């Protein structure tokens, strides 16, 4: 459902214009009438804001927050543009550190989701055709309830008065360990991250596993492969595209998440998303906020590109 970040955009353009020239005038008009409005809307409310953000990252913050007005040029800065925010980003390791922390959280969440989603997706794919739709719907349903409600549920479960906290701390107490706080901790953040994004992993995995040809497993069995070998040598390699799709769908939103650390995390659990939110709504340093957003975009693109390279090589090997 989500488009890949792959190339081919330019090539697509050229193909289009060639095909376009062959269309009769009336068909050409229809084409512009159909594709024009959504294109213009997104140009205005998606592409333009993106460009403004890139531009903003090269500017100075205004006196009262936001951006410096375009007319008041600093005598030292060329036409009011500056690399200051980027210099600032690399001047203090704390920002890079937060990016690394976000990356680790996103990777951990992705791996936990994969481990939890795989058996479920496999079971659904191997269930009778009739029950599959219901089983998939049961995965989608909780995911359809409001995001904040799903995060809030963990505030109750992990709260200091809840049964889970009491039981856990009771257990720790038996070994003479001090009670710990589950809520407002990195643990709470990770649990909620997994909880919120798990369906994103189950669905593409299931879509992939469902398409596997069952006779391959029979052939493997006839050739003497045991259950583990059949899984590891046949099912797993064939499911790599599904694993890749699911991982991308989990990894990207977790990288930019600010609400979960904001609600369930402690003061030390700040991720990139929280840092960006702070720049835009807290300290109102919009140029630096824009720089962080661009760094986040680049980081996400880089990770997905690396994963696509790794996945691609395995897939066609």
């Amino acid at each position, binding site marked *: 459902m989500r*488009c890949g970040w792959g190339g081919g955009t330019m090539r697509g*353009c050229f193909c*289009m214009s060639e095909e376009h020239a062959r269309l009769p005038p009336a068909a050409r008009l229809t084409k512009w009438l159909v594709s024009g409005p959504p294109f213009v809307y997104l140009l205005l409310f998606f592409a333009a*804001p993106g460009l403004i*953000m890139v531009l903003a990252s090269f500017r100075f913050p205004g006196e009262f927050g936001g951006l410096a007005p375009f007319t008041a040029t600093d005598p030292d800065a060329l036409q009011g543009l500056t690399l200051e925010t980027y210099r600032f980003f690399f001047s203090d390791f704390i920002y890079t550190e937060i990016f690394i922390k976000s990356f680790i959280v996103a990777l951990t969440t992705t791996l936990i989701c994969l481990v939890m989603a795989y058996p479920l997706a496999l079971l659904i794919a191997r269930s009778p055709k009739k029950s599959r739709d219901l089983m998939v719907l049961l995965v989608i349903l909780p995911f359809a309830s409001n995001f904040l409600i799903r995060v809030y549920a963990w505030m109750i479960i992990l709260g200091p*008065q809840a049964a889970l906290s009491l039981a856990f701390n009771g257990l720790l107490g038996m070994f003479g360990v001090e009670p710990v706080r589950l809520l407002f901790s990195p643990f709470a953040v990770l649990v909620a991250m997994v909880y919120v994004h*798990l369906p994103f992993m189950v669905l593409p995995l299931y879509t992939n596993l469902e398409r596997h040809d069952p006779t391959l497993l029979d052939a493997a069995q006839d050739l003497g492969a045991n259950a583990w070998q059949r899984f590891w040598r046949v099912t797993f390699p064939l499911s790599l595209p599904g694993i890749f799709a699911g991982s991308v769908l989990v990894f990207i939103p977790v990288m930019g998440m600010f609400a979960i650390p904001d609600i369930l995390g402690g003061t030390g659990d700040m991720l990139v998303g929280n840092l960006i939110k702070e720049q835009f709504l807290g300290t109102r340093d919009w140029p630096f906020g*824009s720089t962080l*957003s661009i760094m986040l975009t680049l980081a996400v693109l880089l990770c997905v590109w690396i994963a696509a390279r790794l996945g691609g090589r395995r897939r066609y090997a």
Partner: protein
Amino acid sequence: MRRGVWLWTAALAVYAFLYLPLLIVIAYSFNDSRLNAEWVGFTWRWYGVLFHDEDMLAAAGNSLLIATVSSLMATLLGTMAGIAMHRYRIKTLTFIVMAPVAMPEILLGVSLLLFFIQLLNLTLGTLSIMLAHITFSIGFVAIVVRTSLAGLDESLFEAARDCGASPWETFRHITFPLILPAVAAGGLMAFTLSIDDFVITFFTAGVGVSTLPLHIYSMIKIAVTPEVNAVSTLLMLLTLTLIVLAAKFAPDALKGKG
């Protein structure tokens, strides 16, 4: 069948993990206690509190208005985009439609905040939220519509053309009725996305206007009250209804997720 047992155990554990937290929220919405801790007794009290909370009702009204307007606009633009993507395969259009769906929400939120304030000089409020919601909903509608178009039998259109139907007549009498369920499903999806959105609304709402998710957020940031459980339960009921409806209209479109 040891392997089967193992798979079932793992899968049931995951289902429990998915459902228990939500069931706990629902259960506590009927608990006759201010604390979300032990079970005291059954009550409807928190629903009564909810229906007398002026701020909450105003936020719910805003959410409904925004979701209605933005889902209608997104359905129109998204259907056009889906048709264009299927029919003309314009790569730049596909990219600009899918990118808002694929990128972290916060990026869309902050870039729109910058754009509205810095370039349009717009006072943030209902209008800016609607414009933002349309932006991210177009892609979802387009995907559902395109999936439906891809599943249609091409020979239907050839038959229509052979019978002398103009492209418009073919669209009006053949294509549109066939993709209508997908359009409806996409519209319901856009409505759900808009009602539920927190992150993008958070950045484009400004100070004066609140929506249901924004109001819930401000409540749980201050304190956890049973009233939040009650509103959550009602909201779950609403989205559940919408999802079931969408699944009825276009079962394949929903499965095509991911």
